[in-house]
């Protein structure tokens, strides 16, 4: 790389950092752990549900176009799809062996493709940034505790950066300092006082996005983890029989033979296996949720601190982490499925050494 190009790049980074820091900073991040409800038809339809539906439709459409005119020598979309499927299949065969790979493969591949598509969809522009603004003092006296100041630009409420002013400031955000047991009148009074010095075309509110990355919702990851656990147990039972697989958890063989001490140990180890299964469910849930939610929070914070340059780095990080977390979810399901399917030796092997206690 020539010297001139290097200097140009350094100058561009410097200029972009300056521009980003002064004019494009967003408001103080407001982190919402629960997914916001968009519709309410008996059950609450959250924005993550809508995003999940969109992701599923995208996957279905993609696979439809990939398998429409299947030819023996693939080309185009079919080629791309076959590449993915082949890589996944080799992965599954490598861990599970030929005998079980066919059975495991659809579930593992589905988990991987769905989680990857969901994570990467959440990185598109517009997700989590375009939505409905709930005013600070809404109808029925519902007052939000935190909000940002929106400017009314041609009828659309936008968070305008503090560009024209010097020294540069970030868009205003509003936090009401009311104790938790304040009456609605007190909250409204505090809201009115906080918004008293806004210009005419500004209003305060809280953004409820239309679309939100699917795995930032704890319910979504919990449901995936439950399905993963159901499939692992199903594979274990269907390949080993109910009683043989159940004897991993309720091991009374040696107890019934009269060997009290070892039998008791086996029984307690069985209970521990049960606890390990439950811990695994929780760990799957929180691993995926934590990674993706932390990524979303990182985006919000970096948008507030240093847009453009640091945001590019975070974007790359999130792309990578979305892929890795999908891979990890699928591989862990596969590994535990293999463990569930592998028959245990009964005689003379310590049961305790066989159990994989996960983090």
């Amino acid at each position, binding site marked *: 790389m020539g010297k001139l190009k290097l200097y140009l790049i350094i100058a561009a980074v410097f200029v972009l950092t300056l521009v980003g820091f002064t004019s494009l900073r967003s408001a103080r991040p407001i*982190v919402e*752990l629960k997914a916001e409800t968009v519709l309410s038809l008996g059950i609450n339809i959250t924005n993550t549900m809508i995003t999940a539906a969109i992701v599923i439709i995208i996957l279905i459409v993609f696979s439809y176009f990939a398998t429409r005119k299947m030819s023996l020598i693939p080309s185009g979309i079919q080629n791309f799809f076959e590449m993915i499927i082949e890589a996944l299949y080799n*992965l599954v065969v*490598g861990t599970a062996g030929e005998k079980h790979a066919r059975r495991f493969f659809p579930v593992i591949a589905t988990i991987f493709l769905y989680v990857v598509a969901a994570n990467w969809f959440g990185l598109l522009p517009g997700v989590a940034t375009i939505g409905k603004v709930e005013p600070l003092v809404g109808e029925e006296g519902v007052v939000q*505790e935190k909000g940002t100041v929106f400017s009314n630009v041609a009828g659309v409420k936008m968070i305008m950066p503090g560009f024209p002013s010097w020294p540069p400031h970030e868009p205003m955000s509003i936090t009401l300092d009311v*104790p*938790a047991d304040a009456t609605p009148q007190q909250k409204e009074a505090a809201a009115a006082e906080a918004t008293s010095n806004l210009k005419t075309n500004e209003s305060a509110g809280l953004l409820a996005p239309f679309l939100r990355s699917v795995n930032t919702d704890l319910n979504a990851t919990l449901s995936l983890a439950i399905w993963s656990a159901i499939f692992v147990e199903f594979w274990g039972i269907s390949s080993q029989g109910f009683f043989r697989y159940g004897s991993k958890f309720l091991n009374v063989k040696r107890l019934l033979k009269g060997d009290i001490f070892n039998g008791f140990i086996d029984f307690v180890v069985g209970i521990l296996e049960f606890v390990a299964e439950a811990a695994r469910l929780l*760990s799957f849930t*929180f*691993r995926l*949720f*934590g*990674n993706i*939610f*932390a990524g979303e*929070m990182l985006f919000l914070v970096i948008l507030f601190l240093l847009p453009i340059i640091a945001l590019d780095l975070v974007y790359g990080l999130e792309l990578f982490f979305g892929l*890795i977390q999908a*891979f*990890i979810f699928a*591989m*862990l399901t596969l*590994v535990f499925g293999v463990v569930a399917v592998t028959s245990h030796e009964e005689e003379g092997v310590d049961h305790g050494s066989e159990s994989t206690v*996960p*983090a």
Partner: protein
Amino acid sequence: MIHLLPVLAISDGGLRFIAAALAIGFGAIGPALAIGMLTGKAMEALGRNPEAQPVITTNMILGIAFAEAIAIYALIVAVMIGLVFSAT
């Protein structure tokens, strides 16, 4: 309010921030060490047997996932303490 000294007092809100910071601060030490050791051992194994690279890498990523999950638990607790629980 906790009065440590006559001039030094921590309010309840301040305690909340300290709790959130400690949760993630201490919670990330263990997983960081674990991931570092894991990757180091993986590098050693890779140096001994470069041909087994796909196997080593796959298993290393699996191990890192387990270790990182603990850090994620700590992060969730910190987020809940600092941002989700409303001040009393």
